[in-house]
Structure formats: C-alpha cells, structure tokens
C-alpha cells in the first residue's frame, strides 16, 4: 500500500500574528513553524497504518526551501520519503492542483491531510484534490480503520457524527481523535537526515483568489471585573449592558 500525507508548514499555534509590507505579508520575525496540527494527526494515523499493515509513506509539502525542517520532522516521525513542490502555497486551488498532479503520478491508495491549514483555514484542499482526481473525499474525519481494500471512517457533523464506508483509493481531511500526535525519537531524527527529500517544480499557475491585504481585528475593550459575592451585578450587566439575557 502507498500512503501520501500532505502537510502544511505553518506558524506555531502560540505565534503572535502581525503583518508587514503595508499589510500584504505575514511577519515571520520570531515565529516558529510547525507541521499543521491537523496534518500532524493525519501523519500520526498514517504511521500507525503503516506499522499495522505495511506500507510506504510519502509526505508532500507545497512550499519553499524554508519548509524543509518541517518536512524533515515528518520524516523523523515515520514517513519514508518526501516531496517538496517548490512554490509558495498562496492559494488553495494552486496547492490542490500541485497535490493532484503528484498524487496521480505516485498512484497512492490513500491520500491524507489535515481538515484545514491553521494559517488560511481554507478547509477545501482535500475536496478539490478528490474532485480533480475523481476520487471520493471525506472531511473532517475523526477515525479511520482499514480492512483490506475498504475503510471505515467517522466524519464529524454539527452536533454528531456519521459512520462511513468507502473503498480505497480516497482522500481524507483529518482531525482528532484520529490518532495522538507523535513526537520523533532520536533514531527517527537520525534516519530522517538521509531519507530522500525530492524537490520538484510546480505545474501550472492557476489560482482561485489573490490576496489584496491583511487586517487585524479591532482591539478588545478592557474587562469589567465583578465581585464573586455579587453575581447579581453580572446578571444585571448581561441583561442591560450586553443585552444578551
């Protein structure tokens, strides 16, 4: 079996978000980059599936050279090899076209990724890749079990979940609790250095939308503190000031 896991290279969840160049560029100053948390779940599940069933596991990232430490981390966690499509991942359609192209070339049985990236929060690349390749796409996937050629999944819906049965190959956007995040061990980190990381060039330049500018939300007003012995005051404020009761 061949598994492809697509990962994003995104700012750590604790990063301070700010912009430069007239609010047209993300300020990477002092920001640490990580494997997208949802992609990290997909990767963790893929490593488990590989260990249980035997498989080759490839990670793919559409990104520039600065993403390589993040890709190496995925190799340390358990991927066998990696593809980096050498381009700025600035638009979901562009990224989906790249993934679809290289996924088709590789003939994968299972294509996993996170439900969304945590920078642009698009949540659409899995569906686009599925549609381009004519494969089923399922997201957000909470559990994934394989039995031969058939998978049992659960998909989160508003206020509940669905049980889904689907045959390989398919595309899935993953979220917890599909697996627990894996921390690379020393051996993983050592072997990751020599695993193949192939840099390939992007195909086409079609985009769906282009950035005009970024903006920060308006600053929050100061908090009003209320004495714990006076909850009546809180109720009064919620009713008459916030008008939410």
């Amino acid at each position: 079996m061949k598994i492809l896991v697509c990962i994003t290279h995104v700012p750590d969840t604790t990063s301070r978000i700010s912009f430069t160049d007239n609010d047209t560029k993300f300020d990477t100053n002092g920001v640490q980059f990580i494997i997208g948390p949802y992609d990290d779940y997909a990767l963790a599940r893929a490593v488990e599936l590989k260990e249980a069933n035997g498989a080759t596991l490839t990670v793919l990232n559409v990104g520039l050279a600065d993403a390589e430490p993040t890709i190496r981390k995925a190799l340390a966690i358990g991927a066998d090899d990696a593809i980096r499509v050498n381009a700025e991942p600035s638009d979901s359609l562009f990224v989906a076209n790249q993934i679809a192209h290289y996924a088709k070339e590789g003939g994968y049985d299972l294509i996993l990724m996170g439900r969304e990236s945590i920078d642009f929060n698009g949540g659409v690349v899995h569906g686009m890749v599925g549609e381009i390749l004519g494969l089923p796409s399922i997201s957000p996937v909470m559990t994934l079990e394989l039995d031969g050629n058939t998978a049992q999944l659960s998909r989160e819906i508003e206020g509940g979940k669905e049980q889904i049965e689907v045959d390989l190959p398919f595309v899935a956007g993953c979220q917890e609790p599909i697996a627990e995040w894996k921390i690379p061990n020393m051996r993983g980190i050592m072997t990751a250095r020599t695993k193949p990381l192939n840099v390939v060039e992007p195909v086409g330049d079609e985009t769906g939308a282009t950035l005009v500018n970024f903006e920060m939300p308006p600053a929050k007003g100061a908090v009003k503190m209320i004495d714990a012995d006076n909850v009546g005051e809180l109720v009064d404020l919620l009713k008459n000031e916030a008008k939410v009761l």
Partner: protein
Amino acid sequence: MSVLVFVESAEGKIKKTSLEAVAYGAKMSDEVVVVAFGNVASDELESTGKYGANKVLHISDDSYNDGVIQAYATAIAQAMDQSGADALVMANSSLGTPVAARVAIKKGAGLVTNVSDLPDTSNGFEVKKSIYTGKAFATVKVDKAIKVLAIKKNAVELVEGSGSAAVEAFSPNAQDGDFATKITATKKAEGDVLLPEAEIVVSGGRGLKGPENWGMIEDLAKTLGAATGCSKPVSDMDWRPHHEHVGQTGVKVAPNLYIAVGISGAIQHLAGVNSSKNIVVINKDPEAPFFKAADYGIVGDAFEVLPKLTEAIKALK
C-alpha cells in the same frame, strides 16, 4: 449576478446559518435561488422567501437524505446550471465547506471560505475572510467568472421580511461514483442546542476537576437555553464528548455570549472563541490569561459562583 444558495436542514428545519446564507445571497443579487435536500416541508422551504429567496429547488429523493459530499456537489453544480447562477453561497460547515471545494472544481470557480463580510464589488470582486483561526482577516480578490463563497456565522444580519419562495422539485442526474462513500449510521449528540450554532455557550475546563461536576455547567446551560462546550484536555480525558471541544483544533463558536468556567484561556482555546460577541470568564486565578480576552470577569471558585449565577438568572426569568 444570479445566486444559488445551498441550505442545510436538521429535523425538517432550515438551519439558521443557512438562512444567513440566503440573506447574504440577497445582498449580492435580486435573483436568489435556494437548493435544499431531504425531508423539508414546503412551507419551511417557502419561508426562505422571507430572507430574499425567489425560488427553491427541492431535491426530495431519499438517496439525498444524508449529506454525501460527492453526490451533493454534483447536484449543486447541476442546480447552478439549471438556475443560471454565477455565484454559490452557503454556510461554512462540516458539510458545506467540503462540498464547496468540489463544486468549485466542477465549475472552474473561485472559492473563498470563512467569509466574514459582504463582498465589495467597487473594484472587481473582493471579499473578506477570517484567517489564522480568527486572529486576523484577509481581503482577497476573485477574478474567476463564477464565485463560490462559504460564509461564517454572523457575516450578515438576519432580518425577517415578508416574501415567500416558490418551491420546485429538482432531480439531479447522479454521476458515477457520487455514492461511492456509504453513510452507514448517523449518531446525534445529546442535548438540545447545537454548539456551532448556539447563541449562548457555557464551557467548562480542567478547573472543574472531573466529569461528575458537569451538572453545574448543564444547569446553567439549561437555564440559559445554551449549548455546553469544553476545553481540549477535558475532551482528551473523556470527561466530555469530543464534539464539545472548543478551540484551535476543535469547534469554532460565534455566540452572543460565551461563559468560560475553570478554563485558563490558552491561546489555542481563545482561537475557537474569538468571534464571540461577549465573553464572561469565571476563574479562581486572577492571573488567568482568559481575563485579558474577556468582557466580564469574576475571580472566584466555580463551585461557589456557578450555582449562585444559575439561581440569579432563574430569578430573572
């Protein structure tokens, strides 16, 4: 511009977030057609007219009762052809967003999700979306002739008018593979109020010490007609079901009122609540970071404050 709006329903009722999508469509154009699936009564469908729909294409074939992503995408693309729509609008949801992705490819459309405001058409087609999990916004320009937008809760104000939409039956032509994924069971969560749609949310964190103490959270939620939520460690420890987990990696809520009890306010939790209109924080630690993101705060022991708060609200009602 002519707009098709994909609406979702639950138990025969059109979801409020979908009605917002209709209202959003009506701000974009006078020609608004709705496409709806499953078992929804005609008068409910007609009522989308109150928010600006002219017509409803209703797909009542039983095979579409469950939200099968591929089948819905095919049907919606065909409904766009049928109605001559050059824009598709829907609520950002666990079904809407994955479906939007496939429709966008079918139609060669420009797609924007998490849309937080009406489009600006003074210079092409520009629209604002929420990014970095609510920590910032981006305005993007869509050059493609066909637009697909998945909108966030509260992107537009819902004002009820008096129109009525004409309902027409619509039978899509299923394509090969549309039903390749089989939904074998659907489990609904307990509770009356769905978290992603709730106007009030009462959320508990590790400060509540254990699942046996959730009665206090539920009492307050019930009194307020609120949904219940929790922090990630709480669902990780199985004190509460996963679908209640709010934050960066969980549900993003946008209620009028979010009450956080015994939650420290880690940046990843805040990422899920930063679209709330009002935030109340109850925490025994005056240094808890959540107070910086709150509108109202009480420093105190949840086990003492919560029952008192519930009583005070009961007295009001």
